[in-house]
């Protein structure tokens, strides 16, 4: 839909393993996973910059933790 530009990406072995695992579990190509990761990073950064908080809640364990960016 949108015009795309091409780049070369060098990853470490561990990063590549992580990418391959995500690609398999999410049923997406590695390119699509990377594209989504970039968009999510930008979204997260924008929300945190505005003073919003990112909290993980575990209903079963009744725990709550917050991502703190220093």
């Amino acid at each position, binding site marked *: 839909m949108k015009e795309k530009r091409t780049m070369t990406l060098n990853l470490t072995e561990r990063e590549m393993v992580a990418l391959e695992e995500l690609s398999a*579990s999410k*049923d997406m*190509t590695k390119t699509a996973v990377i594209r989504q990761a970039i*968009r999510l990073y*930008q979204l997260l950064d924008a929300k945190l910059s505005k003073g919003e908080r990112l909290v993980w809640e575990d209903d079963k364990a009744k725990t709550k933790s917050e991502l703190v960016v220093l």
Partner: protein
Amino acid sequence: MTRVPVKLEDKHTRQGQSRGRLVNAFLCLDVPAPVLAETARNWEPLLNAGLERRGRLGLPALENPHWNWSTKAAWISLASYRSLGIECEGVMQGLMLVVTDGYFARVPPDTGKPIVYVDYVQSSPQNNEDLVDKPRFGAIGSFLMEGAARLSIDMEFGGRLGLHSLNRSEGFYEKLGLVRVEIERHNRHARGLWYYEWTQQGANYFLTKRRGI
């Protein structure tokens, strides 16, 4: 802004039981922020007149009649937000804002896989039967849903999408084949609303049927 040609039925040209004239329109992808803001300004007088009319007739108040598109326009500078619109006669007849990241399927077998989330959708007041006696153009909502499903495919989400439905729209989404999943408990912006999801199969069945039209 990418524009895909579509046809809308002009309901004002209906005669008896026959369908109205089909008119050229466009499904617009990535509607720019100034167009969103301008559209909101153009809709305001009609919306207010429609709400006033409802009050006069003693009809119940609408849920969320005033969605502030000008505020929403600020979000589309982020790559995760995409805006869709249906343009006809040079103006937007409906708008949709979707989020492409941070939402995941709740329905098996694709639980945990990414989805497109429909954040807001609204037809122009002139096409809304809740606001005017004789709505002008039909099928705005289903074309916007088609656009969102195509975006989901483009993102490699297979057409999957999710949304929280206002009470008055539940029947519409069920007719399109979305699965009624659960009443929202976690998302505080949508608490108490039914969460619906279009599975990969459901969205593709809908798109295949549309191609046959």
